[in-house]
C-alpha cells in the first residue's frame, strides 16, 4: 500500500467522500498501518479545532445595505444622452464652462461619425445605465469594481456592448473626490467620452490618463478602443485611483478578459 493511497483514503474518509469499497479498503489499512491511524487522528484534530469557530451572524444592517446597493436589470433608469466627446491628444473639460459653449464647441467635438473601434459597433444607446434594458441584458461585463467608504460610493464597470468597449464610472461623493484612470497598460486607449447631465464637474485627459473630479452623484462613460489584440491579458490592467484632498483612498485595477 503506497503512502499516497493512505493519504488519499484517510482524507476522503475525513471529507465524507468514500464509497463502500474504499471504506472496506480503509478499514483494512487502518488495522495494519500506524501511519494511517496517525494521519487519521491528525485530520480529526484539525476538524475539531476548526469546529470551534462558530457560524457568525452578519451585522444587522447588512441585508438592507446589500439591497440598497444592488440593482436589477429592469430597475435601470434611462438617462438623457448628451453626446460623445471625442478624445483629442489632451484636453480639459469644465462642465459648466463647457455648457456655455456647448452649442459651438460640442457640436464640433461630438462624434458625428461612428468611432473607429469596429465596423459593427453601434454606440447610439450604449452608455451604462443609459442603455435600455434589452441592451443591458446583452451586455458583456468584462470586469467591475465597487467600493463604499465614508461619504463615498463608487462603481466602475468595464463592459462590451454591441461590439464597443465601455468604461462606466459612477460615483456618489459627499465631498469632492479625484479619480484617476490609467489605460497605459490596458491594451486599450480612450477613444471618446459620453457626456450627460450627471457628468463630473471636471474632466481632464492627458495621454492615457483620465482624471475626474466629482461631487454628488455623477456618471461618466468612456468609449475605449483596443490597440493590441495580441497583448497578454495578464498584463492588461486599467488602473484606478480614488483620492480626496491629495490623500489616496482606494487603489484598484480592472483586469479585463478581452
Amino acid at each position: 500500500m503506497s503512502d499516497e493511497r493512505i493519504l488519499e483514503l484517510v482524507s476522503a474518509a475525513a471529507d465524507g467522500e468514500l464509497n463502500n469499497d474504499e471504506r472496506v479498503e480503509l478499514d483494512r489499512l487502518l488495522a495494519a498501518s500506524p501511519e494511517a491511524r496517525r494521519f487519521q487522528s491528525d485530520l480529526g484534530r484539525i476538524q475539531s479545532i476548526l469546529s470551534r469557530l462558530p457560524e457568525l451572524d452578519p451585522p444587522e444592517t447588512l441585508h438592507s445595505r446589500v439591497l440598497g446597493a444592488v440593482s436589477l436589470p429592469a430597475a435601470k433608469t434611462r438617462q438623457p444622452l448628451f453626446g460623445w466627446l471625442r478624445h483629442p491628444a489632451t484636453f480639459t473639460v469644465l462642465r459648466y464652462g463647457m455648457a456655455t459653449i456647448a452649442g459651438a464647441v460640442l457640436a464640433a467635438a461630438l462624434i458625428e461619425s461612428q468611432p473607429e473601434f469596429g465596423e459593427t459597433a453601434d454606440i447610439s444607446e450604449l452608455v451604462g445605465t443609459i442603455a435600455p434594458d434589452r441592451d443591458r441584458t446583452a451586455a458583456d461585463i468584462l470586469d467591475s469594481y465597487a467600493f463604499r467608504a465614508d461619504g463615498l460610493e463608487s462603481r466602475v464597470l468595464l463592459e462590451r456592448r454591441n461590439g464597443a468597449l465601455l468604461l462606466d464610472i459612477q460615483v456618489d461623493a459627499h465631498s469632492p473626490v479625484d479619480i484617476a484612470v490609467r489605460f497605459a497598460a490596458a491594451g486599450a486607449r480612450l477613444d471618446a467620452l459620453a457626456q450627460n447631465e450627471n457628468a463630473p464637474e471636471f474632466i481632464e485627459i492627458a495621454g492615457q490618463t483620465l482624471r475626474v473630479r466629482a461631487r454628488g452623484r455623477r456618471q461618466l462613460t468612456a468609449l475605449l478602443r483596443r490597440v493590441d489584440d495580441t497583448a497578454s491579458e495578464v498584463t492588461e490592467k486599467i488602473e484606478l485611483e480614488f483620492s480626496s484632498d491629495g490623500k489616496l483612498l482606494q487603489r484598484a485595477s480592472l483586469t479585463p478578459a478581452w
Partner: protein
Amino acid sequence: MDKDREIALVRDCQQGDRKALDTLVRHFEKPVYNAAYRMLGNVDEAADVTQTAFMKIFENINRFNPDYRLFSWIYRIALNEAIDQINRRSKHEPLDEPPYPDRNVSEDSAAASQLRSDVQAVLMEIHEDHRTVIVLRYFTECSYRQIGEILKLPEKTVKSRLFTARQQLKNRLQQHGMFEE
C-alpha cells in the same frame, strides 16, 4: 435550496423582481459573510466584501449559466472579491477582535473566545489559496466536486491543495502550541 428553485429565483431576478432579489440575498448573505470573514478575519471587510459580491452577482445575473449551481457561482464571486480585498490592503493590518459578546463572560468563555481568536489568527497565516479550500471544506461544507466547480479546478487538484492546506494549518497550529504531537 434545490436547483430548480435556484433557477426560478435567478429568472425572476433577471426579470427585475426585487422580491426574488430579497429572497436570494436573504438565503446567501449569511454563508457568504461567514466565508468572507474566515478569509479576511475582519468583520467590516467581510461585510463590505459581501455587499460588493452581491453587487457583482446582480450586475451579472443575466450571465449566470444554469448548468452550474447558483451557490458555486456566488461563492466564486465572493471568494474572488475577498482575495482582491486581501491584495488591496496592507499586509500588516491588525486582525480585529471577533464579534463575540464579551460582557460578563466567565473565565471559561473568555478562554474559549481567546481560543477562537487564536485559531482564526492561525487561519490568517496560511496562504489565501490554501485558506480558500479550508474555508470551502470546513465552513461551507463543500464536497470536492463543489470546491472544484467554485474554484474551477479539477478534483485531483482540489484534493492535493486541501492536503497541503491541512499540512500548513497543522504546522502553524503546532508553532502556536495548539496542536501537540
